[in-house]
């Protein structure tokens, strides 16, 4: 393999139980064609520093494990080519505003807890045919974007509202709520809307659009939140 260039990976290191504070360690990597930031980090783990902690799994952008902050952008490390990054130094850190467990590993438990609060499942009546519920391709296409979410946590970490209000459900959980409210088969929209109709639900969003900009799957959570708000408001108008 041809070595395209050398880069220095500046990797965030911190174990809150051991270290006084965080630091960045430098590792020089020979970049081969097609090499991703994740492959660079795995090379460090294999050869340069066996104590590095990070999450990784599918290495093809579908499992959501390797969400990180790379050169000041929210990225999946496996979907970020080293060659394509400008400059000789590449800064790799954990998802900002989430508690660090070790190095690049953050505590995702609060994030998943929030996803669990919005009735994140389909409530459907049994299909009359005993087979599948009919859903037209048009109806299915409404949820195209929302079902693409891989729960990587990037949008949640990027949202300024989650930084200051720990109880805010956040863009991922709200997108999940939208995914079911908008599903033609679902019969529990009212219950779900009630769950997100609060100060720490849809009304906390300030339409900053960080989430939409950061999402590695090109989902627009702000849009989903806006749709939920519209449904809430039009529901109120109807009931007047």
């Amino acid at each position: 393999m041809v070595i395209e260039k050398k880069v220095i990976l500046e990797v965030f290191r911190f174990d809150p139980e051991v270290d006084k504070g965080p630091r960045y360690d430098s590792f020089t990597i020979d970049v081969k064609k097609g090499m991703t930031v994740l492959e660079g980090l795995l090379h460090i783990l294999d050869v340069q520093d066996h104590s590095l902690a990070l999450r990784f799994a599918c290495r093809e952008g579908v499992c959501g494990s390797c969400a990180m902050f790379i050169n000041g952008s929210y990225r999946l490390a496996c979907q970020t080519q080293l060659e394509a990054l400008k400059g000789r130094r590449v800064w790799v850190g954990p998802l900002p505003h989430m508690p660090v467990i070790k190095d690049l590993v953050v505590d995702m438990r609060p994030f998943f807890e929030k996803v669990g609060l919005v009735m994140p499942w389909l409530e459907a009546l049994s299909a009359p045919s005993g087979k599948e519920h009919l859903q037209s391709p048009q109806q299915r296409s409404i949820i195209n974007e929302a079902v693409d979410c891989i729960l990587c946590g990037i949008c949640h970490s990027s949202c300024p509202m989650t930084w200051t209000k720990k109880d805010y459900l956040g863009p991922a959980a709200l997108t999940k709520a939208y995914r079911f409210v908008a599903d033609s088969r679902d019969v529990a929209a009212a219950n779900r809307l009630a769950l997100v109709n609060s100060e720490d639900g849809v009304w906390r969003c300030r339409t900053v659009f960080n989430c939409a900009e950061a999402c590695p799957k090109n989902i627009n959570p702000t849009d989903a939140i806006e749709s939920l708000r519209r449904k809430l408001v039009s529901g109120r108008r109807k009931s007047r």
Partner: protein
Amino acid sequence: MESHQVLIVGGGLAGLRAAIAVADAGRDVAVMSQVHPVRSHSVAAQGGINAPLGNAEGGKDDSWERHAYDTVRGSDFLADQDVVEVMSREAAEVIYELEGWGAPFSRTPEGRIAQRPFGGAEFPRTCYAADKTGRLLMHTLYEQSMRRRIRLYPEWMVLSLVVENGLCLGVVAYHMLTGELACLATGSVVFATGGYGQIYGRSTNSQFNTGSGMAHAYYAGVPLKDMEFVQFHPTTLIGSNILVTEAARGEGGYLINNKGERFMKDYVPKLMELGPRDIVARAIQTEINEGRCFDDGSVYLDLRHLGEKKIVERLPEVRSNCLHSLGIDPVKRPIPVQPGQHYSMGGIDCNVDGETLVKGFYAVGECACASVHGANRLGGNSLLDTVVFGRRVGRKITEAGTGESSSPNGKALERAKGRVEGWLKELFSGSGDEEPAQLRAELKETTIEKCGIFRDGAVLKEALSKVTELQGRYKKLRAIRGGRKFNHDMTRASDLGGMLDRAEVIVRGALAREESRGAHYRMDFKARDDVRWLKHTMVQHALEGPRFSYKPVAVTRWKPEVRKY
């Protein structure tokens, strides 16, 4: 010490489906997994899940019998036909169930679940959600597990399965987030721990698919079955070996060699690109070996004639993987592909309900081998396997009542924990100089080069002596470093021993089986030999090394015949 009536190890499709079945029977169940469930390797399944629904044009005459027959023929008659029958009979029902739980399948114009053609299948019976089927089913089952408030132990890694006097007592596990080692007592343990792809070079599998579950079961005395049958997927991206789904060919993609020919005409002219995986993988590898490949050692998977609209709608993930990994847009350029290790047909020996030799211990999904895939799995049957048998295992446990009362044997579990603790201390105080990553790299090269698509007795012997050498060097590892918390050095080193022992089992099984059947192809024994080899390979762990035996194949409806396409 925590205890649960039922513990499921592995949070992929098989594990969660089993957990849901147990929870629905009102039993206490927990799911323990190395990664959060939505990070499981099930999410990487792209193309679809088989069921004879007859929704697609040309699929009206499909039936469970045709599905079962295709599966048996695809398996090169090594699958147990009674088990295959169960899978295809229950297929439609589990698909409708998933749909009712919210699975966002793609739809036909009439609003039914969309189906596409797949390799080795007579009818278009692969239900799909674009090329994201595994991922969207995984999220659906995760959602349903939240609905049932199923207790999760994410980022817990099992380090030992505790069995005493033929009875399963629980597990010893390591919590990655804290570094804590704990025992968990249960009435029943289900392993849904996935495949071992990382034993092989050029694998499509996730980084954590080391098959540790098979190792723990093996060491606990449970036999492994048909381990020499390793599936190589015909099309993986050159270099990264990221999967390119069979759906790319199901939707009409061509395979092209460096002469610009659709070379499948020379192998299976009737089915062309939609031959079964073993046959297409061998065809591609033959083109490569005989020099009819491109400079990078690939052949082309050409989708351009499908047009941008179809590619974007049906194969968006394939497109984005090509763009990310190779900078190639399949709308404009053909995709360079090569075969890669993909799936393990073999696994923990179990019956149609996941029961094993050990009372209270069950296996399901890729780590298991009830034998529905035999010598070669058809595309779209692995997702089906996970949900059909996940549900069956869950139901069996609750019926059998083995999950009923757990009388924790605290002493036995504490002893097991002590043994694991001692083993970890040894890892941390190793005085050798062998580098785990180096051993792993040599192992992967050995398996793919010497026990891959084409096998040969003399080369397999080389593979065996290399694996034996690596097993020796494994005893001289350097000391593992760092603290206990989130220590990859430790988990990878501890996995490696099991990977080496399983590689030995795979190679020995392949060496013993002097015939060619399905994915196991011997250059020195090119024909299938039903007289000598229509039987399952069984292997049990023993101090002196793996102990092999054989067991008959269940042949019910379909007499073995020449497998001709």
